[in-house]
C-alpha cells in the first residue's frame, strides 16, 4: 500500500510546524513510518526546524520552496510537491505517511486532491474568535479543522466553547479538534482521526 499523503495548511504562526512536531511523537509511538515535506517561500526554515528537532532522520524531511504564492504549489500546480513525495516513497519503501506542510498563508488556501488524500487546516485562538465566522475556503473545505493554542483563550478575550461551536456550525458538522500543540494537548485525537480516516492502521 502506498503512503498516505496528508496536507497541513493555515495562516502564518497558527502552529502548523508545532503540530507536526507534536504529531511525530504520537506517530512514532503508534509505529507509523512517517516523512515530511515542508513548503516555505524562499527558505528551508520549517524543514530546518524539524531536522533540528531530531524526531525524524534529516533525510526524511524535505523542503520545497514555493517562490511566491504558497497556494500555487499545493493547488494549481502541485508537481514539485508530488515529485518530492514520489521520491520519498521510492527511497523509503514501507512509508505509511507523508505530511505536507503548506507555507503559512491566509484563510484561502486549499490542497489539490491530486496532491493529498486528506488535508487539515490549522488556525489559532490568538488570531481572533471571528476567524471561523469569516468562512474562508480553508475553514470550510478542509477534511479536519484544528484550532490551536486553546489555552490562550482567556488571555486574548476569546470564548473558546463558542468559537468551537461556531467553527463546527460553519463546517456543517465537519470535524473540528482543539489542540495546544506546545503542550501536546489534543494531538493524540488528531492522530487518532488520521488513523481512522486515512491511515487505516
Amino acid at each position, binding site marked *: *500500500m*502506498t503512503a*498516505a*499523503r496528508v496536507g497541513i495548511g493555515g495562516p502564518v504562526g497558527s502552529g502548523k510546524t508545532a503540530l507536526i512536531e507534536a504529531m511525530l511523537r504520537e506517530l512514532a509511538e503508534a509505529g507509523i513510518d512517517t516523512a515530511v515535506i515542508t513548503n516555505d517561500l524562499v527558505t528551508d526554515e520549517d524543514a530546518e526546524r524539524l531536522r533540528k528537532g531530531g524526531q525524524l532522520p534529516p533525510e526524511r524531511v524535505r523542503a520545497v520552496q514555493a517562490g511566491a504564492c504558497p*497556494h500555487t504549489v499545493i*493547488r*494549481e500546480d502541485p508537481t514539485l510537491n508530488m515529485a518530492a513525495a*514520489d521520491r520519498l516513497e521510492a527511497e523509503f519503501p514501507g512509508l505509511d505517511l507523508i505530511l505536507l506542510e503548506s507555507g503559512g498563508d491566509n484563510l*484561502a488556501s*486549499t490542497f*489539490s*486532491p*491530486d496532491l*493529498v*488524500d*486528506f488535508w487539515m487546516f490549522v488556525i489559532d485562538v490568538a488570531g481572533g474568535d471571528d476567524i471561523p465566522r469569516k468562512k474562508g*475556503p480553508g475553514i*470550510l*473545505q478542509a477534511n479536519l479543522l484544528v484550532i490551536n493554542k486553546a489555552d490562550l483563550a482567556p488571555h486574548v478575550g476569546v470564548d473558546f466553547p463558542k468559537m468551537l461551536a461556531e467553527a463546527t456550525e460553519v463546517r456543517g458538522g465537519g470535524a473540528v479538534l482543539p489542540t495546544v500543540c506546545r503542550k501536546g494537548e489534543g494531538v*493524540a*485525537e488528531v492522530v*487518532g*482521526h488520521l*488513523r*481512522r*480516516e*486515512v491511515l*487505516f*492502521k
Partner: protein
Amino acid sequence: MTEHPLSMPLMLEAILGAASEPRWHDRLHALEHEGGLEFVSIPEADAARKRMRVTTDRGRDCAIALPRGQSLTDGAVLFHDGGLAIVARIDGAARMRLIPETIDDAMRLGHWCGNLHWKVVFGAGWMDVVLDGPEERYRDRLRDLAGLARFEIAGAE
C-alpha cells in the same frame, strides 16, 4: 478521549475493472440478484483522492487506498470475491453555467473565476463552474462582478 480505529474496515486497494466491461457486467448482474452487489457513493470533488473512508449503501465500512497511478471513475469495480462486489458511483457535482455576452466580457469573467480558483469546464460560448458547496456562495461572488462584465447565469445541461 483518544479516537482510535475501532474496527478494521474492508480494504479496497485496487480498481479491478469497470462495471460496463462485458466480463464484469455478467458477474455483477448475477451478484445483484443474490444480494451481493454494494455501491459506494463518492462526490465528484473527492474522486481524485486515492484514500478515503467510505460506507457502502448497505452500511459496510470500507477504506479505499488506491495506487497513485489509478483513479476512481464511475463504475469502478473495487472489490470482488465471488460472493460480494463493491462498485464506485461518482456523484456528479452541480454546475452553474455562465454565458458572457462578448469576448471582452468573457475575458473579465474568466479572469474573475480564475482569481477565485473555481474549477470550470469550457464549452462553445459558455463556461460551467463546478460547484463545491451551495450555489448561493458562488452567486454572491459574481454579484461583485455585475458592473464590470455582462453575462448570464444558467443551469448547466
